[in-house]
């Protein structure tokens, strides 16, 4: 009896040994495949960024940034497109930041979990998923035609603002919810009202998180083309906008135009425009990342 037991144990452990050997190999193989897949997703990103910079930087000069396009955009600079994109981004911020933060405060600080709150959340998810070109159609239907704003910076900004809203709401809500409840309890127990608590305690604590979300939302707005196609973007308008009711050129649309619509476009200007757009977007991305890590390091809770 004892002997048999011993025998079966050694057999078991031998089976175990080859089994665990196989499991180890399987695991190593699996991890290698996963690592290769990750490499396959990450490498193209780096290659694209490096490619654009290495081909575009030589074409960049101060003149390129501050001159008007000439000769049917085939020479000169891209000033109106740069100004247009900066203007549109700021315009988007004016509408979407207060609204988005307000909505996030409602969801995080006021709303109780009921059917309405759930409807709001579903609406936010849907807003985030609506194709950008559909926003373009909506902006055309509502702002350009119905409200008679025409193809103008204000129509484009409003369209982009609604598109950006879900990003700002969800990131801000996350930042607000991350503030520990004890902060609120202390403030309320000292006699602060709900709004005072939010204004003086919760918002300052959540500010870095909110800023990160706002910058990421605006980054998306700055790079979008489809929503501005029919609401603001001008094909070729070599002057600066004088009011918010003017149409304007914009960097993403300009890149689209010069890479598909204008024959005989010098490649130098195409890459140059791409570099400026990429720099604009990457700077916003880096800003968001820096704010986030700076806040994480500084946070005491």
């Amino acid at each position, binding site marked *: 009896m004892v002997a048999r037991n011993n025998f079966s144990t050694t057999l078991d452990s031998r089976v175990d040994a080859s089994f665990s050997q196989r*499991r180890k190999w*399987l*695991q190593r193989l699996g991890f290698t*495949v*996963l690592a290769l*897949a*990750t490499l*396959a*997703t990450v490498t*193209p*990103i780096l290659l694209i960024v490096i*490619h654009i910079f290495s081909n575009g930087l030589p074409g960049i000069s101060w003149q390129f940034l501050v001159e008007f396009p000439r000769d049917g955009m085939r020479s000169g600079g891209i000033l109106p497109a740069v100004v247009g994109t900066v203007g549109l981004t700021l315009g988007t911020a004016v509408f979407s930041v*207060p609204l988005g933060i*307000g*909505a996030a*405060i*409602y*969801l995080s600080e*006021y*709303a109780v979990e009921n059917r309405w709150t*759930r*409807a*709001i959340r*579903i*609406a936010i*998810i*849907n*807003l*985030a*998923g*609506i*194709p*950008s070109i*559909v*926003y*373009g*159609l*909506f902006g055309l239907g*509502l702002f350009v*035609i119905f409200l008679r704003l025409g193809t103008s910076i204000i129509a484009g900004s409003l369209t982009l603002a609604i598109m950006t*809203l879900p990003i700002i709401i969800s990131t801000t809500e996350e930042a607000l919810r991350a503030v520990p409840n004890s902060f609120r309890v202390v403030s309320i127990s000292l006699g602060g*009202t*709900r*709004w005072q608590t939010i204004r003086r305690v919760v918002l300052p604590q959540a500010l870095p998180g909110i800023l990160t979300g706002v910058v*990421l939302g605006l980054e*998306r707005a700055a*790079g979008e*083309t*489809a929503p501005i*196609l029919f609401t603001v973007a001008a094909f070729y308008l070599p002057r600066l906008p004088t009011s918010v009711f003017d149409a304007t050129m914009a960097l*993403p*649309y300009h*890149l*689209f135009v010069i*890479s598909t619509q204008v024959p005989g476009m010098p490649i130098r200007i195409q890459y140059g425009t*791409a570099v400026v*757009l990429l720099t604009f*977007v*990457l700077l916003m*991305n880096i800003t968001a990342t820096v704010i986030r890590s700076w806040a994480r390091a500084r946070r005491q809770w």
Partner: protein
Amino acid sequence: MKAGEFKEILITSLIKVCGFSAIIFVGMVFVFLIKEGAPAIFRVPLENFLQLRWYPIEDRFGILPLIGGSLVVTVGAAIFSIPLGLASAIYIAEVTPRWAREILKPLVEVLGGLPSVMLGFIGILIITPFLRNALSLPTGLTAFAGSLILGGMAIPTIVSVAEDALDAVPKTYQEAALAMGATHWQTIWRVTLPAAKSGVLTAVMLGIGRAIGETMTVMMVTGNAAVFPTGLGALFKPVRTMTATIAAEMGEVASGSTHYHVLFFIGIVLFLISLTVNLIAASVVFRQRKRAERILS
């Protein structure tokens, strides 16, 4: 009433209005699409919509080739992006050390932030000429090129959402599996992934949703030929998607013409598709939350 109280009430109601703005905007988007798109149904007979030719100059508004085009490009994108995206998410969430994760995830999210027009630009200059030579096609501007780039654009969404879902699986689950003698690999496949199933599913849905709705890149690299795709070979031919049709033609139509209303009608179709995809994704999320609450209570 004291001034302070009045201010409090005013601010509370303002914030409430902001809170409900999302519902109002979704409603407004739908209303204005209907307002401009519904006339198409009355002006164009159904059999005109269901033909296989899109040729607006001759009043031929067959939207099937456009839906087919969107479908081919999206399926192609899904084939690339789902395995790559999920594999990357698993690798980043479960295998790499913390510091590598802090580098890899923001890097993938940079891809999500790259403007679509710039990826289209890269597509025109590099990817389509490469495909033409490598596969000896008459043109590189094909559904395949679109799928390739759209897949790339869906990946950040998939990685980001799926990684969050995997990361949210309680560590105790994995510790239990490891304590029972499972390898790290077995734990990932049999414990972590099944536990994060609904979040992973949401990631895939949102990624695909992004691919269906993408406009500029597909307009730039898919060749825009409105031909109804038949069979697998369609992947290597030019196609035209719903989104690209709207973007390319809306600038040139007269406001109020039949063509104009039909383009809005396509917008309604796109809106309904994204609504469906997102409602399914949302219901998965809500169901998961409910289950988690039940387990925890």
